[in-house]
């Protein structure tokens, strides 16, 4: 499309005499843009790209889920109760193959995928190699399909991120966009794997990005939704669990939910502490022994599965049955313990696969056991077991991965029932408190630090005391002057004061600063202050972060802090010295690490 020539435009304007037609022509011209072609800015293009990433990631996850099922059928048979021979051979042999490939050729596919994705985001500017993504797909499908106690969500997250990264590089996105594109792909992958877009978005914010950031949020949401739409297109809209209708029978039930939270917190502590101790020890062993670790883990899991086949793979089918009181409470407790052991074995030996599903499984079994006990001891005070299962899953997620918001929204999204919010809050807060009380470093950070990476943590960042301008500002040493006052008056105000500058109010919330030097240099002492001002200064509010003040400070001697309700009312002023002094006082001027943590 070529731009219109002047003569053609004039002729067109004649033809389009009415205002409506003229407006149409003008908007057409705007759309054609300066280059004479339809154009969109990178920002807008990024939104379209997010949809494309979501679509591709959704398709990749569909293939990934089918691959896991096919591997499972191929290796373990189609029955949920595989034969002993298959159980003893499949996880062990696949463990050996996966270990050799992972240790020798694809070291970045080991483990869950969340820490690797986070590392790619913060260390490699969003770069994830296509080989890593493909290897993650194949090796995770093999490991999970063969029965290793791991889930598909975290690998799906890494596969989505890898896909997005490859697309970003191919489209030569800017460095900033490349960093944004990784969470976009991660959210799409996780959303498609878990069939829950809100949970995926929040998990990516809490666990991958590690901080609240408005940038790219829209793209993350768009890609997550696209991923889920594609996944449902192919695999149907059946949820992972068919959650029974929830109802709270008695407020006394909240005590049971709180007890469930404590139990989930305790179970999470056992899990995290065992992984914390075992994983580095196993990783420190010589390479040939590392090859054998997943095989040995597979053999042990196979042995356990002879009695408890429920521990194999992600185990969602059993979670679904547990919601319907399929097992007795003692069997449920045994299953939770067996799954914990199996997951520790699989995960500590760095077998590729995710933690999300096993953690949910443990929480579900614990919740179902608690619900079963409630029905046994207080039948008239206990609601349906399904509610306990759901809340237990969330509690375990909140406690192990320390993603409390994700956990709350996961339960709400999966149940589609807002009435469950009270038990969720009672249970999750207890689980989270127990976990935090006895395990300072969250699981994901723990793993990344064991891998030698120091990545930002949502929890640690939110614990940093945020300094606001109120912490640094002080009252102006000289009263603020109006723009119409004379230079002479300003000099008089400064006389006898240690202040080196004065605030000038120009009305309508606009402010400026004049220094003693500038005022002294003025030839006409009767001149109005307004005429001496070269540039205005930005105003600040006392509740804003000190960081904002630092950014606006530049060469300015001080900045005005005004009342939000009256922009002409000066509450105080803040200078660079004030800001640094406030940081020093808070002990944040020289953090030991980027996160302010000791590592």
């Amino acid at each position, binding site marked *: 499309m070529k731009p219109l020539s002047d003569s053609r435009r004039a002729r067109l304007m004649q033809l389009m005499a009415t205002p409506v037609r003229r407006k149409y022509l003008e908007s057409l011209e705007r759309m054609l843009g300066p280059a004479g072609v*339809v154009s*969109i800015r*990178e*920002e807008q293009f990024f939104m379209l790209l997010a949809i494309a990433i979501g679509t*591709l990631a959704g*398709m990749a996850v569909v293939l990934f889920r089918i691959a896991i099922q096919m591997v499972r059928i191929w290796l373990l048979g189609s029955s949920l109760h595989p034969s002993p021979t298959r159980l003893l051979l499949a996880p062990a042999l696949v463990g050996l193959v996966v270990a050799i490939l992972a240790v020798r050729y694809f070291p970045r596919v080991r483990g869950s995928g969340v820490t690797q994705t986070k590392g790619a985001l913060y260390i490699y500017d969003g770069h994830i190699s296509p080989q890593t993504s493909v290897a993650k797909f194949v090796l995770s499908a093999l490991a999970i399909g063969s029965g290793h106690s791991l889930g598909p969500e975290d690998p799906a997250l890494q596969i989505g991120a890898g896909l997005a990264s490859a697309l970003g590089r191919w489209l030569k996105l800017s460095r900033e966009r490349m960093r944004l594109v990784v969470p976009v792909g991660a959210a799409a992958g996780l959303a498609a794997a878990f069939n829950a877009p809100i949970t995926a978005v929040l998990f990516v914010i809490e666990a991958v990005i590690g901080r609240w950031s408005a940038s790219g949020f829209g793209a993350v949401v768009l890609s997550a939704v696209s991923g889920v739409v594609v996944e449902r297109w*192919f695999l149907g809209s059946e949820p992972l669990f*068919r959650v029974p209708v929830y109802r709270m029978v008695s407020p006394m039930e909240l005590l049971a939910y709180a007890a469930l939270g404590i139990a989930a917190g305790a179970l999470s502590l056992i899990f995290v502490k065992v992984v914390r101790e075992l994983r580095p020890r196993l990783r420190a062993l010589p390479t040939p022994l590392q090859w054998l670790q997943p095989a040995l883990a597979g053999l042990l899991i196979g042995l356990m599965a002879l009695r408890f086949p429920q521990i194999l793979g992600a185990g969602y089918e059993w979670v679904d049955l547990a919601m319907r009181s399929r097992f007795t409470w003692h069997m449920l407790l045994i299953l939770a313990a067996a799954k914990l052991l199996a997951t520790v074995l699989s995960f500590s030996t760095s077998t590729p696969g995710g933690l999300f599903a096993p953690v949910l499984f443990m929480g579900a079994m614990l919740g179902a056991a608690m619900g079963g006990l409630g029905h046994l001891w207080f039948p008239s005070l206990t609601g349906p077991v399904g509610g306990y299962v759901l809340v237990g899953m969330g509690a375990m997620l909140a406690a192990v991965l320390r993603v409390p918001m994700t956990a709350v929204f996961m339960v709400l999204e999966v149940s589609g029932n807002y009435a469950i919010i009270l038990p969720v809050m009672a249970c999750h807060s207890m689980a989270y408190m127990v976990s935090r009380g006895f395990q300072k470093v969250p699981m994901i950070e723990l793993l990344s630090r064991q891998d030698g990476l120091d990545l930002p943590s949502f929890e640690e960042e939110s614990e940093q005391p945020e300094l606001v301008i109120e912490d640094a500002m002080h009252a102006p040493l000289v009263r603020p002057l109006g723009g119409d006052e004379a230079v002479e008056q300003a000099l008089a105000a400064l006389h006898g004061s240690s202040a080196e500058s004065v605030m000038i109010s120009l009305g309508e919330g606009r402010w400026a600063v004049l220094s003693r030097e500038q005022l002294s240099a003025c030839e006409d002492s009767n001149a109005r202050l307004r005429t001496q001002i070269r540039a205005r200064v*930005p105003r600040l509010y006392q509740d804003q972060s000190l960081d904002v003040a630092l950014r606006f400070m530049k060469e300015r001697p001080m900045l005005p802090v005004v009342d939000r309700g009256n922009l002409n009312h000066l509450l105080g002023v803040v200078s660079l010295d004030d800001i640094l002094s406030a940081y020093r006082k808070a002990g944040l001027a020289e953090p030991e690490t980027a996160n302010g943590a000791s590592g």
Partner: protein
Amino acid sequence: MSPETSICTTCGQPLGADGHCPHCAAAAHVWTLRDWKPLATLAVIIALGFSFVRLVDGAWEAKRQHLVDLHYTAGQRDLEQHRAAEAVGEIESALFYAGGQFDYRLALSDALLASGQRGEALAQLETLLQQQPDDARVLMKLARLEARRQRVEAAIYYYQQAIAGVWPASAGGDPFVLRLEARFELAEYQIAQDHRAEASASLASLSEGLQRGGHDQLRLADLYLRNGLPQAALEVYESELRRTPGEREALAGAAQASLEKADYAAAKRYLAEIKPADDQSRALSQSLKTALALDPFAPGVNASERARRTVHAYRIAIARLSRCGVNKHPGRGIDMNKDAERWSSLVKWADQLSPWMSEKKLRGHDEIVESTLRFVFQAEMTAERDCAGGEADDDAMRLLGRQRLGASQ
């Protein structure tokens, strides 16, 4: 907030006076249609990817459906062969590949029930009911399950809900017939639970919905008989006989109904029409003879004979009690099961009557005769309910009891 204090949402840098971020504007790439190559390639990749995934998904879908059928068929076969534990495993596998479909969940509840896992089956059914509250198949299964758990009120509630519920096409039959079956089952259950008044109401509503003639009418009449309503039963049998004279089942039923009404002549007449006689008619004839021989109030029986028959009836009842393990003396040898109180009172009653049990003492004491016969009927009916081992005389006594005491028992 003024533009001066706004921050770019992309890079976090302060925005310029125009509200735009100078930093991002400088770095941003403007995408135009001239960049069609990567955009077109991306579109092609998506289209190709979509086609490929569709192909794979199609193959997986076929495989999945095959596995569902395979495991479901195996599960059903296991159920038929009474291998309930294996059936549970197979149906769970089918359910896994079927994505938790309703019908397979229903099948799983059957398998769980068959394997004795009633609690699990109940939980499954309750979840299914939440999913489809009007599904009559679920309601029927719940009714049967509650009936097995001796929760009579719950069972009756679910039966009634099932009758009013929706019978889907996958229920395997004509919804009208299935609903009728549910009505019969409810009536039978109420009769078995001795809820005679409720059963009468169920039978009345059942009779309104039945077509004239056929097997269902005979079933209805049989239920009337079992519910202690021989007159209603007789009317149905007679109606059937008018429609198809000589119908053996109707004749036998009419004979039984007449017998229960103590209309021995009519019973004899109906029995005589059954030619050639079969086992059922012969048993009925025997019952008739026995009843006639034992009934103290049979036509033509004088006071002396009535007293003799009463003493004989008393002995039959005492013998029946001892066969049930109940000693004549209270507190000794009584089977202290759930109805121990009733047994104790029977034994006390027997002890009170014992001194009167001779023809001589009974003669002229009709009130004692009456009381004795009441004791006999009560003992026979209690024994019939709580312990097995009744003989022909006991059957005849119960028959006479039903005639005398009617539905009050």
